[in-house]
């Protein structure tokens, strides 16, 4: 029992970032419950403050020379702290976007804020634990919050449809994930990743752990929306409110990759040739399908859905790129981490602008809605183009630095074919990424009011931040790549 109390103290001190998040989310909820529908602004303020404090405490912990050894259920290492920084950043930007969005749509529900924070808590547990049980609970907390967020536009039919679709697909994904976890438990009697890693080589089992890994990966692939588990993405991304779509496209992927890196390195998944082949197939399919289908979309949100599919493929390719001569180098996961940082900034920037598009009290993100935007709001259209350029991988933006580091790693480690495919597909992606910009600047609107009329302060803050960092990181990527290298295993 004494050890219990010691454990508890360890957890309390070590996981301080998480507890701050929890307290903030509960406080938001409490205020909302005490004064329903009246306290939206204070609630959002508290939410943002919570996230900022979390960010500060995470950085404080980062600077501590000896990290408090939290319990094995909750591993607070630099990897965790890096990913906490990423998801909290996503949270802050999303709440800023959401504030603008809700001001325009005249629909300020305070639950939104606490749900965002709850799902960030879920994400943190998802990637910070060494125990598959906690990972799973984190995954579920994250997913459950997002199901609700997706459906939070109750009067919008598409939002309802998206919520149901995402819920069912997510449920299936969780079940598959859990089945993989159960297989591990059945074969080895433990769920701790570190213990599994030790048990794996000794036992005479051949295919069972691989099947288990395949199942767990399938569960994650659903969340990542890589091909062939991508079919839900366009509908759900289109139906969800724009800030939520941005949150899903970045937060869920970052968390899933955080967990994927942990389990990949923890149990040497990539040293299993079958799993490696599986990954290659998935990456190639994702590159091709994601990019080609994005071309034929008529809606910016759907296009960005496919773009996020192809980006997920790119990150997965980054994981694969660290594989060298039959062994995975844990250190090379830093490229993936940096890529995720860049991806986060440009995607959320784009979605911040998308959140402002409103016509007849509903979202208007069809390409025809963009016509003439370059003339009515040239600065905003310019920034949107900047984010799109970054997604293509134009030099001078963070997208270039991220893609460059992944591809160069791949070339170094001899994955030439995949690297060529990645470059080709990046060029293909220019077609669809530049199409909205072309529409904005070179097509006259057919009359009617422009799709963006007012720009709330919060949205402009998040757009400015994203634009600034996209350029800054594009010009000086080295400092942040170094950070990622420190955080990598």
């Amino acid at each position, binding site marked *: *029992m004494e*050890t*219990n109390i010691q*454990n*508890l103290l360890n*957890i309390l001190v070590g*996981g301080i970032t998480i507890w701050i998040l*929890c307290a903030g989310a509960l406080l938001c*909820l409490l205020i909302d419950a005490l004064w329903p*529908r009246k306290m939206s602004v204070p609630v959002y303020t508290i939410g943002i403050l919570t996230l900022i404090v979390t960010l500060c405490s995470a950085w404080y912990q980062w600077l501590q020379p000896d990290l408090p050894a939290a*319990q094995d*259920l*909750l591993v607070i290492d630099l990897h965790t702290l890096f990913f906490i920084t990423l998801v909290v950043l996503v949270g802050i930007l999303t709440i800023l976007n959401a504030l603008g969005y809700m001001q325009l749509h005249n629909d300020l*529900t305070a*639950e939104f804020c*606490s*749900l965002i924070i*709850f*799902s960030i*808590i*879920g994400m943190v*547990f998802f990637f910070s634990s060494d*125990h598959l*049980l*906690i990972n799973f*609970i*984190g995954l*579920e*907390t994250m997913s*459950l*919050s997002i*199901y*609700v967020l997706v*459906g*939070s536009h*109750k009067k919008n039919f598409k939002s309802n449809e998206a*919520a149901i679709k995402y819920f069912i697909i997510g449920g299936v994904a969780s079940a598959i994930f859990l089945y993989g976890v159960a297989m591990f438990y*059945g*074969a080895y009697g433990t769920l701790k990743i570190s213990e599994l890693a030790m048990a794996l080589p000794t*036992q*005479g*089992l*051949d*295919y*069972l752990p691989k*099947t288990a890994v395949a199942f767990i990966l399938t569960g994650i692939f659903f969340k990542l929306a890589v091909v062939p588990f991508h079919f839900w993405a366009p509908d759900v991304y289109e139906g969800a409110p724009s800030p939520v779509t941005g949150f899903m496209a970045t937060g869920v992927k970052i968390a899933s990759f955080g967990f994927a890196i942990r389990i990949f390195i923890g149990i040497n998944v990539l040293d299993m040739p079958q799993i490696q082949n599986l990954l290659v197939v998935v990456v190639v399919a994702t590159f091709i399908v994601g990019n080609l289908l994005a071309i034929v979309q008529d809606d910016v949100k759907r296009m960005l859905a496919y773009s996020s599919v192809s980006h997920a493929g790119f990150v997965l390719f980054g994981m694969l790129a660290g594989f060298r001569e039959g062994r995975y180098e844990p250190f090379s996961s830093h490229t993936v981490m940096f890529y995720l940082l860049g991806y986060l900034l440009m995607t959320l920037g784009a979605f911040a602008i998308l959140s402002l598009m409103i016509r007849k009290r509903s979202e208007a993100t069809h390409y025809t809605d963009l016509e003439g935007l370059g003339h009515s709001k040239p600065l905003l259209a310019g920034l949107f183009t900047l984010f799109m350029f970054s997604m293509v991988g134009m030099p001078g933006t963070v997208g270039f630095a991220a893609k460059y580091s992944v591809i160069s790693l791949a070339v170094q480690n001899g994955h030439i074919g995949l690297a060529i495919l990645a470059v080709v597909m990046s060029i293909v992606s220019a077609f669809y990424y530049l199409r909205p910009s072309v529409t904005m600047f070179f097509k006259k609107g057919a009359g009617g009011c422009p799709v963006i009329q007012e720009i709330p302060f919060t949205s402009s803050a998040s757009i400015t931040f994203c634009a600034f960092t996209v350029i800054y990181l594009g010009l000086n990527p080295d400092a942040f790549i170094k950070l990622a290298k420190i955080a990598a295993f």
Partner: protein
Amino acid sequence: MNPYFFYAFATITVLMVVLMILQKNPITGAMCLIVSFFSLAGLYVLLEAHFIAVLQILVYAGAIMVLFIFVIMFLNLKKEDLKTGRRPFYQFAALIASGALVTFLVVQYTKIPPVSFPESVAGFGTVEAIGSLMFSKYVIAFEVIGLLLLVGIIGAVLLGKKENHD
């Protein structure tokens, strides 16, 4: 553990789940699922996990099945709604894929080296044992589940409640 009981319960479980999938009428399918839950509870009893066995009935057969039935009634699918186009190709493909997976898994499971499990420790599977683990080693998991359930409540209220201000 008595193997005859095990095989009996296991057969019922699998049979009922398969029947559930094949049922046309969703309510009948739900009933099949209930039976399979009960036989699962029987399996847990055979494994000396008494608490889990009762939970299986209390939570699944009791609470979740009531919700299932409510939802089925809520949707209230008419017979004509259920007549979706049969797609023999997909059915065939699904059959092959699931058959292959099952065969594969069965082969894999038989490869697990025979482990001589120790006789269950006194107090194994009791509430006391579960509780003392849950509140010492897995205390975080316990608290996070509290959070998860809170999210569940928020979600239910947010999505299920009709707004009465308009």
